[in-house]
C-alpha cells in the first residue's frame, strides 16, 4: 500500500523537476545567435545586412556576455581562430565567403544552424533580387525604370499580421498529460488484489474466508470499495501535488479530475479482469501489469515526444483505444477547448472501456468451479 503512495509522488516530483524548464522555456528565450567571420573576407555590404537584422559587432572577449540582441558577430584574423571558437562552442557558426558563401557548425542538435542558414540564405537572396531587377531593366522586362524610383523613396511591403496566429497548447505538455494518465492507470495491482481477496484459489487467506456464508459478489465489492476510495483519493492528491509542483493542466480542474478518477476505476477493473483470467500465473500477470502501461505510456509520448507524433500519423487508433491515450487526449482537449463535445466523447469512450472490463470481471468471477480448495 505504501508503495502505491511513494511511487507516484517520487515519480511526479522527479518528472516535474526534469521537465519544468521544457514547458516554461519552450524555446521562447533563444540565446543571441553568434557567428564568426574572417576579417579579411567580411565585406561592408554583409556587415550592413547583419546590422539591419538587429545584429552588432563585438570583440572576442565579449563573447561570454549576455546581450539583448538577435545576433552578434565577431571578426577574427584567421580561419583557425574561427574554428577554435566554433569547437569551443563560443559561437554557433563560422561564416566564410570564399570560394562561396558557406558556414560551419558543430554537429550537436540545435536550432541555431537553421537560423544562421536562413539568415545567410536571405542575404544571398537579397543579392540575387538586386541582380534580377538589374537584368530585368536591361532586357526590357521592366520597361519603365522610373517605377524603381518609387522604391528609392520608400519601400513599405505588406507585413504579416502575427497577432492572427493561434498558438496551440504546447506540445511539450504531452509529457505531463501522459504521465498523469499513466499514474491514473497505475493501480492495476490494486484491482488484482481485490480478486485475490475474492477467489479462493488465489490466496490461502481467501480460501479460508470463502468457507464462510458471504456471497462472492459481496466479498468482491467489500474488498473493492475501500481500495477504490483510497485510489481515488490518491489520484486527487497526485493532481493537487502536481499543481503544487507547477504543472499546468489548465483551469478545468473538475474535468481533469474526472478523467483521473475514471482512469483509476478503469485501471482497477482492468487489473481485476486480468487476475480473474490468469489465476495461476501471478508472475506473468505482474509482468503485464508493469510492462503494458509503460509500453502504452511510451507510445503516448511520455518518454520521447516524437513517438506521440509518429503514433498519431501512423497508428492513431492505438492512442484512441488505449485508456492512457484517452485520458491524455481528454486533458489536451480540456486545455485547448474546455468542456467541448470532443471532451465528452473521450469521457464516453473511457466509460465504455470501463464497462467492458467491469463485465469481463463479473463474468469471470461468476460460477467459477475450483478443482479443489
Amino acid at each position: 500500500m505504501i508503495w502505491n503512495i511513494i511511487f507516484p509522488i517520487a515519480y511526479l516530483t522527479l518528472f516535474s523537476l526534469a521537465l519544468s524548464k521544457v514547458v516554461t522555456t519552450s524555446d521562447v528565450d533563444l540565446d543571441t545567435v553568434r557567428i564568426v567571420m574572417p576579417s579579411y573576407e567580411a565585406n561592408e555590404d554583409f556587415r550592413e545586412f547583419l546590422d539591419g537584422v538587429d545584429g552588432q559587432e563585438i570583440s572576442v572577449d565579449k563573447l561570454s556576455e549576455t546581450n539583448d540582441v538577435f545576433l552578434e558577430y565577431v571578426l577574427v584574423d584567421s580561419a583557425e581562430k574561427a574554428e577554435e571558437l566554433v569547437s569551443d562552442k563560443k559561437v554557433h557558426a563560422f561564416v566564410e565567403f570564399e570560394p562561396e558563401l558557406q558556414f560551419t557548425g558543430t554537429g550537436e542538435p540545435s536550432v541555431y544552424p537553421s537560423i544562421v542558414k536562413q539568415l545567410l540564405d536571405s542575404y544571398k537572396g537579397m543579392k540575387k533580387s538586386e541582380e534580377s531587377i538589374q537584368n530585368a531593366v536591361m532586357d526590357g522586362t521592366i520597361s519603365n525604370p522610373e517605377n524603381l524610383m518609387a522604391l528609392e523613396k520608400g519601400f513599405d511591403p505588406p507585413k504579416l499580421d502575427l497577432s492572427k496566429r493561434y498558438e496551440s497548447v504546447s506540445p511539450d505538455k504531452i509529457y505531463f498529460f501522459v504521465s498523469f494518465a499513466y499514474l491514473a492507470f497505475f493501480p492495476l495491482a490494486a484491482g488484482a488484489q481485490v480478486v485475490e481477496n475474492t477467489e479462493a484459489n488465489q490466496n490461502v487467506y481467501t480460501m479460508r474466508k470463502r468457507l464462510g456464508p458471504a456471497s462472492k459478489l459481496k466479498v468482491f465489492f467489500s474488498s473493492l470499495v475501500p481500495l477504490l476510495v483510497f485510489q481515488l483519493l490518491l489520484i486527487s492528491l497526485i493532481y493537487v501535488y502536481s499543481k503544487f509542483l507547477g504543472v499546468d493542466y489548465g483551469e478545468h480542474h473538475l474535468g481533469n479530475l474526472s478523467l483521473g478518477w475514471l482512469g483509476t476505476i478503469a485501471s482497477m477493473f482492468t487489473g481485476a479482469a486480468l487476475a480473474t483470467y490468469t489465476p495461476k500465473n501471478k508472475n506473468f500477470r505482474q509482468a503485464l501489469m508493469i510492462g503494458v502501461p509503460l509500453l502504452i505510456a511510451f507510445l503516448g509520448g511520455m518518454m520521447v515526444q516524437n513517438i506521440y507524433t509518429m503514433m498519431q500519423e501512423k497508428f492513431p487508433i492505438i492512442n484512441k483505444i488505449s485508456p492512457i491515450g484517452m485520458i491524455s487526449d481528454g486533458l489536451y482537449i480540456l486545455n485547448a477547448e474546455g468542456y467541448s463535445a470532443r471532451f465528452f466523447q473521450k469521457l464516453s469512450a473511457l466509460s465504455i472501456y470501463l464497462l467492458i472490463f467491469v463485465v469481463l470481471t463479473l463474468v469471470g468471477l461468476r460460477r467459477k468451479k475450483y478443482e479443489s480448495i
Partner: protein
Amino acid sequence: MYIAIFLAIFLGNLKSVTGETKSLYYVEPTIAIIDEDKSQLSTNLKSYLESRYKTQEVEADEDKIKDKVFAKSIHYVIRMHEGFEESIKTDDQKYKGYSGSEASVNRLIEYDVQQYLTYYNLYEISLGGEIPEEKMDWVQGEIQNISSQEVDGKVLGSDENATNKLTTMYYFLSFLIYILIAIGFASVGVTIVLMERRSVKIRDLVSGYPAWMRSKSIFFSSLIWMSLIWLLMIIVGLTATGFEILQNSRALLMIVSSFVHVISITLIIILLANMIQSDRVMALASTLFSLIVAFSSGIFVPRELMIKELVLFSKIFPAHWDINNLQLLAFDTTLGQAEYRSFFVNLAIMLLMGVAAGILNLILNRSRERSE
C-alpha cells in the same frame, strides 16, 4: 515478457531517432496551407511554400488543425481566407496561422512568408503597381530563384556521414541505459531477491556449497545475463547505423563506455536486491528507478533544459557519467588529450561506483551471516 516489452520500446525509440539525424541539425518543419482565397497572390504563395517545405494536407476544420499542431504532425498551418489578397495591406488581414509553441520554428516560417510578400511587392512596384498576367510566371520564377538561394553548411572537422551515424548511436546507447536498468531490476533483481530468501539460501548452504562461491556465481551469472541483453540491444541498434560504424574509433569507445556502465549497474542492482528483499517492491522499483535515472541523467530530456540541482543529483548514478562519455564522443568535434582524459575519468567513476556497490554488498552479506 519484460524483454519483449522493452525491446518494443527500444525499437520504437530507434525508429523515431533514425530519420532525424543530420550532419547539421536543421529544423525541417512540416506545414499545411489552406487557400480559400484562390487569388493570384495566395496561389503563388502556396506554390512557393510547397516548394520549400514538407507539406501535409489538412481539413479546414479548426479542431483537426489544432490536433495536428499539438501532435506536431504539422508545425504550422497557414489559412488564407477569401479576400486575403485584397486585405494583405489593411489592418484586417483575412489570414490565420496555427502554430506550436516553438518560437524558433514559427520565426523561420513567418520570416519566409514575409520574404515572399516583400519580393512580390517589390516586383509589383517595379512593374508599375500590378503584375500583368503575362509576366506572372516570370515574377514567380524570379521569386523562386531568389528564395532558392541556399548556403551550404557543414560540420567542423568531421565526415558528414559518420556524424549522422554517431548521433544515432548516441541516441540509442543513451536510451539503452534506461532499458537495461528496467530489465535488470525486473530480471536480475527479482531473481536475486528470490534466491536470497532464507528458505532457498539455506538449502544451498546446507549442502556444503561455500557462501563465497555462491555469491561469485550469482555475480557472474547476473553479469552474463545483463551482457547478453546488452549485446542483443547493441546488435539491434547497429542495424540502424550499419555495422561499418564499428570501424570508427569513437563508436568503439562509446560501446566500451556503455559496457562499463553495464558492469557498474549490475553490481548496483545486486546490492539493491540484497537490501530490498521483496520481489514485488523490486519489480516496482524497476519502473521507478529506471525512470528516475532516465529523466535526471538527460536521457529523455536534454540536460540543458533541466534545473542544475537535478543534474547535480544525477551524478550519483553511473548513467550520468556514461552520458557524459557518449556526448563527448558523439558531438565534440575534436578528441584531444583533454577529451580522452575526461573519457577515462568518467569510466573510472562508473567502475568505482560499481566496485563500491560490490564491497557494500559483501559487507551486507557478511553481517547477515554473522547475525544468523
